[in-house]
């Protein structure tokens, strides 16, 4: 296994780097879209039902099916990373919109009333009261989405763009375990590192949680 690492250092590194950005870009796009959608879902409860049904259906489409269908739907090359990014954005969005909506709903009504009573306008109340209080639940959803994204990226290797998944297809074609083992270890490590980063961000964003404990 160590000889494989020595001889294929650059391949592994390239796969790892591709894996990282294939996982991160959909998360960032989803955060930007999920916040307003989640907000709307809370304001208009009919929308909450619509989003739940819509994203529930999108979410149950297997990733491999989406990966192979998207190229022609989007009109891009099958090897284009855009396929993977769009597919993973759909899954991440499905999780995040719901997390954001549930998080905003979980904010105690009396807190909102108190904020209004001390003179917060609606917009300021949202940004400075509701959003911070909703952070833990939102980030819990983000953690789930991130970890499953990292696992899903590798499926993209079947259509030729899958970060560490390349090590899986390579190992399978050669009937040789070391690249696969390296890929699995790196993928799990990535998931753990991303998870820790989100937890650290959560600590920064919710200083009161530390005081309370």
């Amino acid at each position: 296994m160590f000889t494989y690492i020595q001889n294929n250092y650059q391949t592994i590194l390239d796969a790892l780097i591709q894996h990282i950005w294939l996982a991160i870009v959909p998360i960032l796009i989803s955060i930007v879209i999920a916040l307003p959608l989640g907000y709307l879902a809370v304001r208009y409860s009919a929308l909450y039902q619509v989003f739940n049904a819509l994203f529930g259906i999108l979410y149950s489409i297997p990733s491999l099916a989406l990966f192979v269908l998207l190229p022609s739907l989007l009109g891009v090359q099958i090897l284009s990373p855009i396929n993977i990014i769009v597919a993973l954005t759909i899954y991440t969005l499905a999780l995040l919109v719901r997390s954001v909506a549930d998080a905003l709903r979980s904010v105690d009504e009396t807190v909102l009333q108190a904020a209004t009573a001390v003179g917060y306008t609606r917009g300021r109340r949202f940004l400075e009261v509701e959003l911070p209080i909703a952070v833990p639940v939102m980030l819990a959803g983000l953690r789930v989405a991130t970890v499953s994204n990292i696992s899903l990226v590798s499926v993209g290797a079947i259509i030729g763009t899958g970060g560490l998944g390349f090590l899986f297809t390579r190992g399978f074609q050669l009937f040789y375990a070391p690249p696969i083992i390296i890929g699995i270890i790196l993928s799990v490590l990535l998931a753990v590192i991303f998870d820790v980063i989100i937890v650290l961000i959560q600590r920064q964003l919710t200083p009161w949680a530390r005081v309370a404990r």
Partner: protein
Amino acid sequence: MGKGGTLMYFNYLFDGAHWHFDKPGSIPNLILQHLGYTFVSVLIAMAIALPLGAYIGHTNKGAFLAINIANAGRALPTFGLVTLLVTLIGLGTLPVVIALVVLSIPPILANTYAGLRAVEPGAVDAARGMGMRPARVLLGVEVPMAMPLIMAGLRSAVLQVVATATIAAYVGGGGIGRLLIDGLSIGDYSRVVAGAVVVAVLAIVLEVLMTLLERAIVSPGVSGRFSVGGRKGADAVGRDPSDLLGEGITLTADGLPAAHHDVNN
């Protein structure tokens, strides 16, 4: 794409020749294979995870283990696991089934555990006070009250497995993934479309069936469908189960831990 071009993509799906039951590799046969992988894997996972989860939830021993298995299972790339098992034990159904079992244990285990922990302690005390033996307390009180969460775990396991079983075709297995993989390799796009449509429909149908099964199995007293005086099942079940799953795992509105919503491996 023109109108004719769009329809062309459905050639494979709507060609009756691909729907003959007796032809190997026909769509109904692939669906059966796919369901076969799914049910065998989920049944094995149930045989392992239900008793284990019930034991952990009942005794509260090894809760740390249950939560960590659930988290680790999420991070493990199933595609990597399938290819690894194939290189280790060779081609065939076995590596695929093992990987799918590994995939479906975490949601079943975590939800069974969380479901049992969430049972109102007063109900358990009452059952003991009535003279029930521990086994009857477990099977007659705790499990029925935990059933909504247990079923949610099963449902998410089934959906994960249905989605992931498509990967079996990559390592020479059967199932609907065959249409996707073969279509890709020979450049027959309408075959890819057929596979994607069939597997998506199958996933959605199974989700609906699991929801119906959940309704049939969960006692009306627990689900609150026959609520008396506005008392909902949620009150009867008692504590919010999400408190028990620890940091980072929340329960979504339908009682499913968000942690196990990652269906699409």
